[in-house]
Each structure stands twice: as C-alpha cells, then as structure tokens.
C-alpha cells in the first residue's frame, strides 16, 4: 500500500521535473518547479525526515520560488534599445 504511494510520488516527481524543463513558457516552468518542490516535501515526509520537509517547503519551494518568479519578471522586461540585439 505504501509502496504504491511511493511509486506514485516518484512518478509525479519525475513528471513534474521533466515538464519543468520541457514546457515552452518560462513562467510556467517556474511554477512547475514550485510544484516539484512541494512534491519533494511529501517525499521527505515519506522518508521519515520531517526537518528536511520543513526546510524544503520553506526554503526550497518558498524562497527559491519567490527568487525565480522575481527573476522571470525581470528577464521578461525587454529594454527598448535591445531590440536589435536579440537573436
């Protein structure tokens, strides 16, 4: 029973990680990365590691997600004099 849950969680981790790297929009990729972080929190809870689960939820999903969303917004803003520099 718990093995089935572990396998399902492992599959969800791998799927969300793959979609993070493969989805075309970068904003969606960051949100999928936050989802991956929360799924990883569940994995740590399953591994009897509540300290790591707390830290992963707060730092891995929360703070890293906030930093990434801020960077996505910043990298999306194109300065008007950069138009000819794009490839």
């Amino acid at each position, binding site marked *: 029973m718990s093995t089935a849950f572990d396998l399902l969680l492992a599959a969800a981790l791998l799927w969300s990680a793959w979609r993070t790297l493969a989805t075309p929009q970068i904003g969606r990729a960051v949100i999928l990365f936050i989802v991956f972080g929360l799924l990883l929190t569940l994995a740590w809870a399953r591994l009897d590691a509540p300290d790591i689960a707390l830290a992963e939820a707060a730092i891995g999903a929360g703070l890293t997600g906030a930093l990434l969303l801020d960077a996505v917004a910043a*990298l999306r803003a194109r300065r008007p004099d950069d138009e000819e520099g794009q490839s």
Partner: protein
Amino acid sequence: MSAGLIYAATGCLLFVLGLGGVLLLKALLRRILAFNLMGSGAFLVLVGLAQRDGTPDPVPQAMVLTGIVVAVAATALALTLARRWHALTGRDDIARVRDTGLQIRRKANDRRKAAR
C-alpha cells in the same frame, strides 16, 4: 523494494535529468532550474540510500538540510548573475560569448556618448 530505494532511484533519474538540462538547454533560467533539479536528486540519493533498510538516519538528513540552504544561496547568486547579464546584454542565454562581449563594449560606448 523499500521506500528508501525507490526515492534513491528517483534521485538518480532526477540528477541525470538535471544534468541533461544544464548541458542541453539554452536559456540561463532553465539551466538554473535544471541545476536545482540535480541538487534535489542528489539529496534524495543521500537520504534514500542511507535509509534503504527502513531506519531513519540523522547524519545524511543533517547534510541534506545544509545542502538545501546552500542550494538556495547558489540559486540566488546565479539569478543575480543572470539578471546582470541580461541587464548588460539583453540576452537570456550565453551563446556566442565573443560577439556578446563586443555588444557590451559597444553599448557602454553608446551610453558614454549619449551622456556627453
């Protein structure tokens, strides 16, 4: 197969997935995401392998706790560098660095001329 082994195997796959992302993706932000995936995979391997017989082991858990904090620090630094790169060149990848160096110098010269 115990829970530890399942997550250790998942960690291996995540690590290889992240490694592929860092090597093969172009956009800097995606490479930073892939690097974080590598780190998370390594953490799963650390804890999963140590607990493959089912008993919780505090030593790799403490190491992973340290690792998570160091990973967020590395991500913050990498994001700052990526944002700086984007502010200087307007690019979000680091292809063709030689041309980009020329672009940075040209833009700095233009800015200096405009300021006069």
